[in-house]
């Protein structure tokens, strides 16, 4: 009975304010080059790339500056023509130090992009396409930064029947996928052809939330007739953009706990990632820039920008006229985006946006912050898209009963969407508890 109610959507979830009207009508604009670009060698899940350049070397825009180290790794490309100043450790968003290539762009350069060897759709084999995607440095641009080519290889004995192009974009404030769907429609269809050939999937579904009707219309109207594609409009609900949720919404299939989309015959690729595949592969280029939304109440010139990888948050905020009083900045949206503790960290492939607030604006958005004990109101239980019991998990986390959290209450399934913390009337930072608990569990298993 409940399955009937939840048509075209998943169960539970929340409805945070969408906050997309400030930027969803603004066309993507190009961002200027910063005086210095910092390109971390690890912008993806997996092994860091191996640098191919040395300090003092000249690079052209689009040139491969680091090659993948094994299958679970991708290449890096120079975001600008200029000179490599140094290769050094530089702070990342998590506070860790990451080896990074510092590039100083030539101010007078035409910044023409260096084309590589084209990967022709007609002649390439599936494996060649997968390799080309890895060489192009393509990772999930939705935020997870998982190497895309790894997804495309179905595990032994599994077949992929459905390709899902994820244009849900459920995070408040972010409008990059929305703009990409409107402005890069042809690239998306081209990317879909590559993905279909690489995976052998027979059906494509583009998932769009109901707050982007223009994007759905554009995709439907301009879809080539030979593509086995349907556009599905899902009701707006957070966190529909999560892989597990979007597959549940569209196909009514649940990825098994601890499993992969391939376990239910599906593969899910972000719409901006698809557009980049369609744009870059024919030219033989790699990712040296990406589209991000710079927004939030602390930003004066909000917008969607095509920004060079390696631009620092400080430069981005300066260019967009961030207010002096900005004190809270996060990469991505307010639900899952990590706080920036250092404005000199670079924008990487996984950064989907910069959202900035001043103190007063943050206080308005969060309300007051007194933390009360859990009153068992069950709102978190009603919100959790994975049907976990955040209340119980929170109580166990305080007691440091990590094994019980993992074994009895499926902590490791939690993907930290933040729905539980968002609804909690006691303002318990549940997601933070769960992050720490997962860290402790990983530490314990590593020690054993």
């Amino acid at each position, binding site marked *: 009975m409940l399955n009937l109610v939840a048509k075209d959507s998943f169960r539970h979830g929340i409805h945070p*304010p969408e906050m997309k009207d400030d930027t969803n009508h603004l066309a993507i604009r190009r961002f200027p080059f910063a005086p210095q670009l910092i390109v971390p060698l690890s912008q993806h899940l997996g092994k860091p790339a191996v640098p191919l350049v040395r300090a003092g070397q000249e690079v052209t825009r689009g040139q491969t500056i680091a090659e993948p180290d094994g299958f679970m790794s991708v290449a890096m490309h120079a975001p600008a023509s200029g000179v490599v100043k140094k290769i050094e450790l530089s702070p990342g968003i998590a506070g860790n130090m990451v080896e990074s290539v510092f590039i100083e762009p030539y101010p007078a350069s035409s910044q023409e992009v260096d084309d590589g060897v084209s990967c022709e759709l007609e002649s390439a084999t599936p494996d060649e396409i997968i390799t080309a995607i890895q060489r192009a440095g393509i990772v999930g641009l939705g935020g997870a930064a998982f190497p895309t080519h790894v997804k495309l290889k179905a595990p032994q004995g599994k077949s992929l029947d459905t390709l899902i192009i994820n244009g849900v974009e459920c995070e408040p404030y972010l409008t990059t996928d929305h703009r990409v769907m409107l402005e890069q429609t042809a690239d998306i269809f081209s990317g879909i052809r590559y993905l279909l050939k690489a995976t052998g999937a027979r059906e494509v579904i583009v998932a769009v939330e109901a707050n982007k009707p223009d994007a759905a219309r554009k995709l439907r109207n301009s879809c080539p007739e030979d593509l086995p594609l349907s556009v599905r409009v899902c009701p707006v609900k957070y966190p529909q953009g999560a892989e597990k949720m979007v597959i549940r919404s569209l196909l009514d299939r649940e990825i098994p706990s601890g499993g992969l989309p391939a376990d239910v015959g599906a593969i899910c690729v972000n719409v901006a990632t698809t557009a980049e595949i369609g744009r870059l592969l024919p030219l033989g280029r790699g990712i040296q820039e990406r589209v991000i939304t710079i927004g939030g109440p602390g930003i004066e010139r909000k917008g969607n920008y095509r920004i060079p990888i390696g631009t620092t948050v400080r430069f981005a905020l300066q260019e967009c006229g961030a207010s002096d009083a900005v004190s809270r900045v996060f990469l991505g949206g307010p639900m899952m985006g990590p706080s920036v503790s250092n404005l000199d960290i670079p924008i990487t492939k996984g950064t989907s946006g910069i959202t900035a607030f001043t103190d007063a604006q943050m206080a308005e958005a969060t309300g007051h912050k007194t933390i009360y004990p859990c009153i068992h109101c069950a709102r978190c239980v009603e919100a959790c898209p994975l049907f976990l019991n955040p209340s119980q998990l929170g109580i166990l986390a305080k007691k440091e009963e990590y094994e019980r959290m993992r074994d009895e209450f499926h902590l490791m399934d939690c993907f930290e969407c933040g729905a539980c913390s968002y609804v909690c009337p006691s303002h318990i930072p549940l997601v933070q508890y769960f992050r720490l608990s997962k860290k402790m569990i990983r530490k314990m298993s590593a020690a054993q």
Partner: protein
Amino acid sequence: MSRPQKYLEIGSSPHISSGASVEVIMRNVFIALLPVCVFSIYAFGLAAALVLATATLTCVVTEHALCRMANKATTIGDWSVAITGLLYGLTLPPDLPLWMVAVGGIFAVAVGKFMFGGLGCNAFNPALVGRAFLQAAFPQAMTHWYLPFADNRFADLPGSILAFPFAQPVYDAVTAATPLARMKFEAVQAGNPELLWGLTSGSAGETCFALICAGGIYLIARNMMNWRIPVSIMLTVALISWVFMQVDPTVYPRPAFMLFAGGLALGAVFMATDMVASPITNAGCWIYGILIGSLVVVIRLWGGMPEGVMYAILLANGVSPHIDNLVRPRVFGTGKGAG
């Protein structure tokens, strides 16, 4: 951003919240209770007003004092203890001596709530713990019922209410048995209209079924109460008593009487739904409600007392953590839903 940033604030995501808070929930419970209180004072006059005020004040003062003694910041600001006090007052006979009201209030907060660790930790509904204490300590006073709508109710106080502490209260006011007691001991069932609109005698806040349900609907509409609890309790009571009425209508009362009379409405809507002491999952709430409903019928029909809502709820409070343990919701991607 021309000047360098002085400082950055770091917080863990999510950075925004729904704006829900414990105070807002408690304030809404208070609003839902307001009509019930006003009616209580209208029906029982000055006596009910004094009982309610004493109950609420004692509870708030007790919590404040205990926090002070424990060297903690006071927790009366979250409104929860005020709600406890008000609910506690509503379960008492309106002419109960005030010193007894105060003693029960202190017990409710100190033993029912604070001893377990305060807000969020109480295993039992504190208001009912206080009432149960009084029921055990002063059984006579707790089964003495003041006549509703007495002519002089706003001018005179029943003599019992100002009784000297630890002295035998003197009852001078006109009394009336509750509908449940009359059913039990005289086999007379009150009619539906007088039960619905609260024309009978009883505890200060239990008599008017309609207003209690209105408060419940308000809270359910604002998503501050799990509707499954009151609904399952009432359905269970109605169903079981209907079955017994089919067996022998001369012995067993009709379902409507069982629903409308006594503390069932107040208990099902405002007491059993105490979030802290009730199960967290929806399936658990159904089980919990069915358990309470069954116990209420059993105690009322075969127990020694005319009323059993309080003990039914307290018993179910005690097992609610076990219910939660027993019925864990299926986690996404496990069991039959996976694949």
